[in-house]
């Protein structure tokens, strides 16, 4: 079993806005591209061109329908990757120490050289955020692009996870959730960001921002004045128009 380090002051993570995520999978594929070419073994694909293709992804988007008591059903897009929990059960369950949480920034990583592919960590993760690569038989998970965010070979503006850099709708944010003054912490405070499945006691670092209320029917008397008729038919409208035109700048003929 592996022990967690003392909680770090810096807690790097993602803030994902469920109000804005259009479910386009841009983050999914950008992640696949970067992490196939970079950290550790490539993310392999089985049945690449046959049957139902199945490969390793570190980030996937799920969609859920919600039926409110009143009004139309809604569809929520829900991107999911490792939440870099403070009390990460995937770390403590690891028999070899391969799964670990970084002391300096809280990122949870797998040291592939020590990973025996036993799968205990994936089993322990209540979020289903880890995938065993079928080709290499090592556990793969979100690295928060640890090889991008500090990378001095990248321009400073690009030192963020691939999924954040690519998100077209701006629904993904990256930063230090241990710093209450950081942009991401502020966003969580303003928008009522929440923990995923807090009852699991994992203390996830990543936060989700809730969707804004939808299909809110305004009170009729608020909107009614906007459609107050000025006329009932074409003739009436032309009569109204005559007066309205006269009232316009330069209107008096």
């Amino acid at each position, binding site marked *: 079993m592996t022990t967690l380090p003392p909680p770090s002051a810096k807690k790097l993570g993602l803030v994902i806005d469920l*109000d*804005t995520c*259009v*479910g*386009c*999978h*841009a983050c*999914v*594929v*950008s992640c*696949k*591209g970067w992490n196939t*070419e970079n950290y550790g073994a*490539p993310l*392999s*694909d089985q049945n690449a*061109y*046959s049957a*139902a*293709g199945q*490969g390793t*992804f570190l980030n996937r988007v799920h*969609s859920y*329908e919600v039926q409110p008591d009143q009004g*139309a*059903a809604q*569809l929520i*897009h829900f991107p999911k990757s490792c939440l870099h929990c403070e009390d990460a059960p995937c770390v403590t369950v690891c028999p070899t120490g391969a799964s670990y949480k970084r002391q*300096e920034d809280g990122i949870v*990583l797998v*040291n592939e050289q020590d990973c025996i592919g036993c799968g205990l960590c994936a089993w322990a993760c209540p979020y289903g955020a880890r995938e065993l690569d079928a*080709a*290499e038989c090592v556990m793969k998970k979100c690295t928060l692009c*640890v*090889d991008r965010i500090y990378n001095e070979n990248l321009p400073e*503006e690009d030192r963020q996870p691939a999924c954040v*850099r*690519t*998100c*077209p*709708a701006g*629904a993904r944010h990256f930063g230090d959730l241990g710093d209450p003054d950081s942009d991401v912490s502020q966003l969580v405070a303003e928008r009522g960001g929440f923990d995923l499945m807090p009852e699991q006691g994992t203390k996830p670092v990543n936060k989700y921002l809730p969707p*804004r209320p939808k*299909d*809110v029917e*305004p009170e009729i008397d608020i*909107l009614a004045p*906007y*459609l107050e*008729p*000025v*006329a009932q038919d*074409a003739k009436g*409208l*032309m009569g*109204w*128009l*005559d007066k309205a*035109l006269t009232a316009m700048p330069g*209107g008096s003929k």
Partner: protein
Amino acid sequence: MSLDQPHVDTSPKVSDEVRKTTCYMCACRCGINVHMKDGKVAYIEGNKDHPVNQGVLCAKGSAGIMQHNAPSRLQAPLKRVGPRGSGKFEEISWDEALDIAVGLLKPIREKNPEKLAFFTGRDQSQSFTGLWAQSYGTPNFAAHGGFCSVNMAAAGIYTMGGAFWEFGQPDWDLTKMVMIFGVAEDHDSNPIKIGIGKAKKNGAKVVGVNPIRTGYNAVADDWVGITPGTDGLFILSMIHCLMKAGKIDLDYLARFTNASVLINEDPKSEQRGLFLRDADGQPQVIDRRTGKLAPWNGAGVEPDLAGTHRAKGVTHRSVFHSMAERYMSDEYAPENVAEKCGLTPARIRQMAAELARVAFDEAIELDREWADFRGVTHSKMVGRPVSFHAMRGISAHSNGFQTCRALHTLQIILGTVETPGGMRFKPPYPKPATAHPKPHCKVTPGEALDGPHLGYTQGPEDLCINDDGSPIRIDKAYSWENPMSAHGLMHMVISNAHAGVPYKIDTLFMYMANMSWNSSMNTSGVMNMLTDTDEDGNYVIPNIIYSDAYSSEMVAYADLVLPDTTYLERHDCISLLDRPICEADGVADAIRWPVVEPDRDVRGFQSVLCDLGGRLGMPGFVNEDGSTKYKDYADYITNHIRRPGVGPLAGFRGNGDDHGRGEVNPNQIDRYIENGGFWIEHVPDDCAYFKPFNAAYQDWAVKMGFYDVVQPYIFQLYVEPMRKFQLASEGIGTRQPPDHLRDRIKETMDPLPIWYAPFEDSHVDPDEFPIHALTQRPMAMYHSWGTQNAWLRQIHGHNPLYLPTKVWEANGFEEGDWAKVSSAHGFIVVPVAHQASLNENTVWTWNAIGKRKGAWALEEDASETTKGFLLNHLIHELLPPKGDGLRWANSDPITGQAAWFDLRVKIEKTDQANHCLPAVPAIKSPVPKGPKELKWKVGE
């Protein structure tokens, strides 16, 4: 830090080099950074400097690496050796391939150029391929707009000089309410996502009008789950409410639209319904300063919205009078339309009221002085911050043109087009219909056509018809059947050529259009037409040449296959002469260049056309001595001159410092590469809004070379050319429609927007087929644009038919069930899934996920072939007979746009099936199958 934590290299080398080019994973055309390692493509990300995507990139774009390495890439030119459709080919050399092509094309050009039908599908180089076709001399050229969104494009051009996407966009920075109609999950891809994100961040309200609540409609703050084909009625009802409440922008309507223009109302006049014009032909208004007639564009004229004029016993009244009479009518009252739309009257009123509130109570004023074309100076730019975006959902119906016109009318009466917070055009648009070419079709054997094929008809005199009224074009574009078919009718080419109506052709030459699969209605029928033989055993369509980069379903039906490159191996220009990539604040164009060289015996299709043009001695493609003029497409991009100082690329002209207009710069492509693959010039601040009317913008547009003289115009709420076609149907004029079309022309070509029920509703029994069936393109897949992609197919590898709760429960469906789905034309058997967030009478599926066995280098057990399907099998290019002895086209009667979304079906639960039907037999793959497993890492 303790030592037992492993060392991680947090600064690995990212790549050897970044090459910047333009994406081609869909039609959005974003800038991409291609990271290279050891000369190979290692990673693709968005280009932060690029105007289209500003650094972001969608799933398709990031998966480009899997497109580039796809096993389905064609390897070499192919000659058919088995029966057509079998997929049996032999590889041949380019010399042999070009000899075969010239052997077919040369005699046709010399004798009957119209016997070549050249249609280029989802081509992004139409200004080049069109020029090639024009130089060849055939009248039969178009790209794919007819089966895509010509209703949207043409309605926008005729009404206000541009539509959405490439033409214009919401003012995302300033808008406070965005309403999207029929927008599936594409077109354009990243800019809409960026825009919605921005609007939400700014607190703007997003409203989605769509029968299906996914994607953009899922994040919309308000969802209007309308019944398919009724958007026009919903819009006209909102117009009714707004006019009745006087919530319309009178000043804007009077000055900047033809609502003030006078119409002849004498029922006996041959001019009835036409504009009153002066001796110079200018439409007349009443000038409020004098109360007298004045030309619409006269200096200082203040047009009277309520103008009337009586001369020689004839009454003329302004267009606005007709609009008031039409739209104030109870016919459009919410109570009278709501049920048809699948909405409540209160919902329609709510939407109209919200538009009124935002447009007028939250108006924006920018402190920017500007002068209009009448010389009137305005101290401020006043904006009405409601904006709209719409796409195929409202366009691909038989009432699509009028629905799109209705939407533009709604935008215009609210004063939101080209004003702050509303919709903004993207240069070189706006450009009115009158500034576009008219269609040309005069054929002279051995010579070029008399002008560009595609354009905007202004009346019956511009139709492409013979003296007997028969169509000149194989697709019957610009005939009485669809007089304003601005993009042609690619979806009718094969069925017309097979029927020999209006005539037989010799050679069908196509590019990048999967006509034997997802790009055709009646897919199985089209496959039969392509393989059908006459009594002598010869193919009814004698010769087929096809170019594609991948082993698509259509490849199997070609006699000669010209293999194209992937998008990372080729030159291209995304030109202002074509479908531009500009933004509202900037004029821009871009290139592709070979960031890697092909490792196969393939050539860029446009380069092959340059070569063929030379071999055929076509004007513009040969030098004076008869030698080939352009050695390849890059040579054409650099050296072609369209008008003085204007070429395919507008940036870095002359010595490299000229933009817009300038001499040829031999180093132009290198300059684009240095600049990240694109060029942009910002629209000056005083030109940023009111562009059609803004004198400073007009001057800037001429300077940039968008057009050669200033051409201010006003929005055409009343489209006079439509009235001219109506007049012909009433018996006026020398060019007369055939009798069987008179009533339809009269009914549908109304010069003010109307709504009529989709045609299928009156050709099939709505009680027997009560369900509407639609498709959408997923954001992470783009039909058969490219290949089936190893990464993206894990997101969309099969497609269920999504059923609303009502249909789900009525049939007792359960998870894993299959259904038989029938239309008047045929049936399919497909897997089903439940979706509650759906119009209760609508089913839908993802477009073009289903693949044919043997295509795209997929194994025959691929999920796309077993649990993937096309709705196309249910849709015929002709409507069912209705007893009048005629077969009417399943198209919009104005533009000919394919009415995909008129489809009605019925649904029954079927016994446990495990394979979609129809099960089309496998074709032999012309390329080897892909690997079982991928571990794609190109670096160490």
